[in-house]
């Protein structure tokens, strides 16, 4: 075994030497491509452009809307390209995935070097290296090389630099660095992109979002949460000028038959139970129920109003004087009739053509169930009755619109969000600076060769460098 291993190593080495063929070349080439800033810029711009499409073309609307606005042929193209739901198309997801691969590869390729330079860096450099830097100075100082070096170290340490020193035959070499956290921050932001996108994907696969129209006093089963929800109360608060200030629902969670928790939710303040969030999303008038209907009973002959009564929903009212018993049994907000099923229904949720159905008993003998229309009084005659009925008004029952959501990816998204904000802030305000100095003895003391580079923020660094040069010039050693 031992005797064979050098041979194996050799053959690997010879493979590696073959230009442009080995796996390592392909790997390096691929890593180079995927880690490139050019790809990042390309993806940023392409994502920005494609995201624009979804703000110009309405998303997720009904086909008729598109056909009317753009024509049928264009709509067909929209469907082919996914323009009616851009953000959930395979190609948009692919672009996001590519962005993640891009930032991860960049991290993989560049972070190790930063990590290494956090721990150690090259202290001794050649003189031409310092002289060739963007910020460079030659400062003659009177004093011994140890004394001057000591002074520079002190000065840099004062400014928050981490300083390393090394002696060689020529003189003293100094290396100082500050603000590497800025570069760490940039990579933190790179990692965060993947975390956020992953969180988003998890949410869209294992999460759900539903909308519930719920009435006060009713209990609803939440199948995906395996528990029940009771709406105890719903009400609206108003400002003094009549504008809506807030709307609120008191909800009780019933788990395994027992009430577990009660909370009053409002916009901006949801109820959370077992990872399911209940939001106060909207409210409106129910389209199949009323709280109360006001009815005028009129004489068919004279048209005189005999009595006006407020009828409660599905509760019989006894009008002894007229010999009438009335009950509101049904309500539709927008009257529609299905002639095949012979069924009355509400065409829309708008109160466009409201009607109630009355169950009436007149003088113990006549029974009828007429529909009374709010906008068309006297549309139908009740044969044999002395009376005519008019729906004067009604108090609609309010429903509370609840959004019911579960998103198991949300914690990941917040982790990524924190990372991206912290990362970008670090990398924007902290910039990596490096200084090299060589203190070389000369005829009249020493000459300090100082050179520095910065990752960014050239003007600030230029200022700092100039000040530093001045202070080194006046070192007394």
């Amino acid at each position, binding site marked *: 075994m031992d005797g064979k291993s050098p041979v194996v190593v050799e053959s690997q080495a010879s493979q590696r030497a073959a230009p442009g063929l080995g796996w390592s070349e392909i790997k390096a080439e691929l890593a180079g491509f995927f880690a490139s800033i050019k790809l990042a810029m390309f993806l*940023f711009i392409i994502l920005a452009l494609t995201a624009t499409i979804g703000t110009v073309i309405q998303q997720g609307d009904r086909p008729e809307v598109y056909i009317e606005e753009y024509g049928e042929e264009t709509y067909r193209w929209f469907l082919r390209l996914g323009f009616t739901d851009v953000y959930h198309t395979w190609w948009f997801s692919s672009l996001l995935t590519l962005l993640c691969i891009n930032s991860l590869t960049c991290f993989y390729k560049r972070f190790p070097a930063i990590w290494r330079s956090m721990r150690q860096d090259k202290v001794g450099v050649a003189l031409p290296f310092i002289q060739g830097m963007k910020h460079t100075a030659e400062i003659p100082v009177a004093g011994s090389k140890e004394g001057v070096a000591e002074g520079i170290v002190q000065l840099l340490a004062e400014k928050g630099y981490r300083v390393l020193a090394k002696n060689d035959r020529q003189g003293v070499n100094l290396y100082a660095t500050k603000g590497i956290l800025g570069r760490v921050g940039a990579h933190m932001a790179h990692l965060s992109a993947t975390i956020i996108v992953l969180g988003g994907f998890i949410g869209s696969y294992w999460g759900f979002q539903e909308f519930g129209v719920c009435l006060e006093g009713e209990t609803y089963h939440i199948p995906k949460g395996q528990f029940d929800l009771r709406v105890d109360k719903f009400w609206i608060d108003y400002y003094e000028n009549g504008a809506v*200030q807030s709307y609120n629902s008191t909800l009780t969670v019933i788990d395994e038959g027992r009430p577990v928790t009660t909370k009053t939710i409002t916009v*901006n303040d949801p109820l959370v139970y077992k990872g399911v969030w209940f*939001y106060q999303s909207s409210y409106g008038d129910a389209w199949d129920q009323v709280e109360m209907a006001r009815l005028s009973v009129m004489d068919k002959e004279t048209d005189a109003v005999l009595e006006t009564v407020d009828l409660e929903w599905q509760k019989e009212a006894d009008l002894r004087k007229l010999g009438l018993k009335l009950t509101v049994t049904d309500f539709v907000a927008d009257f529609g009739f299905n002639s095949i099923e012979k069924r009355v229904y509400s065409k829309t949720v708008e109160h466009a053509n409201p009607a109630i159905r009355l169950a009436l008993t007149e003088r113990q003998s006549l029974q009828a169930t007429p529909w009374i229309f709010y906008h068309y009084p006297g549309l139908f005659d009740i044969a044999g009755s002395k009376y005519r009925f008019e729906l004067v008004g009604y108090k609609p029952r309010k429903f509370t619109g609840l959004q019911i*959501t579960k998103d198991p990816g949300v914690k990941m998204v917040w982790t990524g969000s924190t990372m991206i*904000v912290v990362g970008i802030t670090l990398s924007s305000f902290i910039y990596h600076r490096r200084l090299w100095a060589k203190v070389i003895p000369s005829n009249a003391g020493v000459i300090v060769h100082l050179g520095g580079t910065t990752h960014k923020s050239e003007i600030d660094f230029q200022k700092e460098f100039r000040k530093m040069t001045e202070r080194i010039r006046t070192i007394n050693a």
Partner: protein
Amino acid sequence: MVQSLLLFDMTFWLYLAAFALYVGYILARRPGRELAPAGHPTSGMGESDDGWSAQIGQVATIVTAFGLVVNSVALLARAYERMQISGTFAPWSNQYEAMAYVSWAIILGYLVLEFRYRIKSVGAFVVGIGFIAMGAASLLPYRYQTAEPLVPALNSYWIYIHVSVTLTSYAAFAMAGGLGVMYLLKERAERLGRRSSFFAALPDLETIDELGYKAIMVGFPLLAFGVILGAMWANYAWGGYWSWDPKETWSLIVFLIYGAYVHARMTRGWEGRRAAIYAIFGFLMVIFCFWGVNFLLSGLHAYA
């Protein structure tokens, strides 16, 4: 209501005066040195002024600072008025107030820049944007200018932090845009070999470029933070942290645009002229995100 509107008006006139004074300052200024060739910063960062220009410059700074004070008082007055009618005070609760706040942030940012780098000529460009922002706000119909009570979705403590952070990032991008315009003007003058004292009075190209970059480096993290705060708010108010609402999407687009800029600066050739053009383009996108989306596209953010 009347008090704050009056103060906002005053702010507008003060910024206009300050803008004119800064232009006057540049015109009166005789460059201390010969025009430096592109890419070579002159040794001194600060400007050396003499006689007239120094006095105009001082007056300009004082007027700007006074404008900022009036602007602050106007915002406070509006906050007080809001407190009276609805119990929330955020003086950036509609388009008009948001514009007034952005102007405030731009001018504050400019004064910080002036005191820190001792460069006054930038004022002609940046204070100019502040005054245009104030002016555009006052062109809004009256019903957009008054403080109406907040709709339920906005009635939350998130409005204090999400909106202010996002608007501050817009202000930073506005500064970068102004500096971009300044760069292009100066660069053109240099390219054509014009030796007018107006352009010579501007700081050297490298400084303008660097300041523009800095402004974006302030705006970029603020925008990221603002968008994330918006997502957190949405998670409480709308039932999901991201719903691809036009405003949301456009903030993301702006973020991506500046993200590309930040990465581009790492590569060769993306400073100077190109960066200046890009910063102006970015600012135009910010304007669309801020104004265009509210008036042209409908969505959840259509509150103004």
